[in-house]
């Protein structure tokens, strides 16, 4: 029972924080500048890691699909098709979100947590600034807008990685692979992936910000909050992956 009480208390605090976050900004121009800054820190700075991971993920999917479909009854274009669908349906959104939960989530939790323990959040409150909104809303806007672009980059680079691995290592021909990625293509899969990305971006940013905002203590607690941010975001991403898949693909 104490565990349930604690869970409900935390949920209540989380939704109360969101209520504060979505209140009217004091000065939209200041929030705009802050949002542009977050586009760089949380968005542009994540392109590198998403590109690298997607490239190798695409390569591995292609090789594994090739080694598992060596039987001549399977057409060769299955390799490209498998790579495309795996990348679009799961890797570009869910796996990328798990990676971003580690990179962006821990960064958000530690940044806000450090501001809490060094009284910078108190300083904002004393000035009459809605600290929750000022610190979290620009991050939410930035990730909700930018993460879908990261997903699209992940899809393109992932398929490119698959094509390069497949053709350079000789497991498929370029023609077969390209035929495969065009075969029975369902555009809705992209929409599905982007919808998931938006949900995951919200989870990563809000859960991590929540962990950082309510840090109580010192640097040790900031570290713990950062870890909790990654763990809770990851679990919620996996849970919502199931829910959204059932809702969107059934």
């Amino acid at each position, binding site marked *: 029972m104490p565990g349930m009480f604690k869970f409900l208390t935390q949920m209540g605090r989380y939704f109360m924080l969101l209520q504060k976050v979505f209140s009217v900004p004091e000065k939209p121009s200041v929030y705009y500048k802050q949002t542009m800054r977050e586009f760089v820190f949380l968005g542009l700075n994540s392109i590198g890691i998403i590109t690298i991971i997607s490239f190798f993920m695409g390569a591995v999917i292609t090789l594994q699909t090739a080694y598992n479909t060596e039987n001549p009854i399977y057409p060769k274009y299955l390799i490209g098709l498998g790579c495309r669908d795996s990348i679009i349906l799961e890797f570009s959104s869910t796996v990328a979100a798990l990676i971003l939960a580690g990179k962006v989530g821990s960064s958000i939790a530690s940044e806000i947590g450090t501001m809490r323990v060094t009284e910078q959040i108190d*300083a904002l409150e004393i000035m009459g600034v809605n600290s929750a909104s000022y610190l979290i809303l620009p991050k939410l806007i930035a990730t909700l807008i930018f993460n879908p672009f990261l997903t699209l980059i992940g899809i393109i680079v992932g398929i490119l990685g698959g094509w390069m691995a497949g053709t350079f290592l000789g497991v498929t021909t370029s023609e077969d692979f390209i035929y495969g990625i065009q075969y029975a293509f369902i555009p809705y899969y992209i929409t599905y992936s982007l919808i998931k990305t938006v949900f995951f971006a919200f989870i990563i940013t809000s859960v991590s910000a929540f962990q950082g905002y309510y840090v109580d203590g010192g640097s040790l607690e900031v570290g713990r909050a950062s870890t909790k941010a990654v763990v809770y975001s990851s679990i919620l991403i996996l849970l919502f992956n199931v829910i959204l898949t059932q809702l969107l693909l059934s």
Partner: protein
Amino acid sequence: MIKINHLYKSFNGRVVLEDISVTFEAGKTNLIIGQSGSGKTVLLKSIVGLHEIDSGEIWYGDILFNKLDFTGKKEIRKEMGMLFQGSALFDSLTVEQNVMFPLDMFTDKTLDEKTDRVNFCLNRVNIINSNKLFPAELSGGMRKRVAIARAISLNPKYLFCDEPNSGLDPITAILIDALIKELTEEYSMTTIVNTHDMNSVMENGEKIIFISDGVKCWEGNKNEILTSDCDKLNDFVFANSLAKKLRSLK
């Protein structure tokens, strides 16, 4: 003027402040003194509304502050400036941006006007040619002075200082104390300073309250403090061996 009536504050059932009543006068440097853990910071944070009090009244002039809603408190907070123990400068902003922050947030001044005001405030606290530096590049004393400049940038009616000279050498500490006193008189602010530094008390103590274990034990000024018959206060004031010797000589 700030008036506190019968203020009580507890954390998880542990009473931290008990029946505090005091009036802090405008144009004076009001000091709250006491040992570490006596409840000074909790009192200061309760006065500025960072802690919700259990019962009692906090009056800012003729406004009952603790009964105001978030928006009402926000309006009063625009008239507050606060210097935190660790300065609480925003790490990601330069000195100039830190001091400009309240101006950006709450005024419609042009960039030139804001820059003029920032330079005026920085000059007033003797910070010169450091506008583009980040807080991490400043010494402890400089950080405190920048924090004071930020606190006075909007011409506040109320200035709160939590341990303004903690971690500073005696000479810098005296300079910070003198600066706070000068600014208080210059702008007719109601200034409340938390300190356990006896140099500050003897320099700035126009009005002093002594807190021990969350209870106000004594109230007076720097001239009366040496002749008090409050045992707890005497233990605090004459804590070191030199002070004890001087007292015995008297």
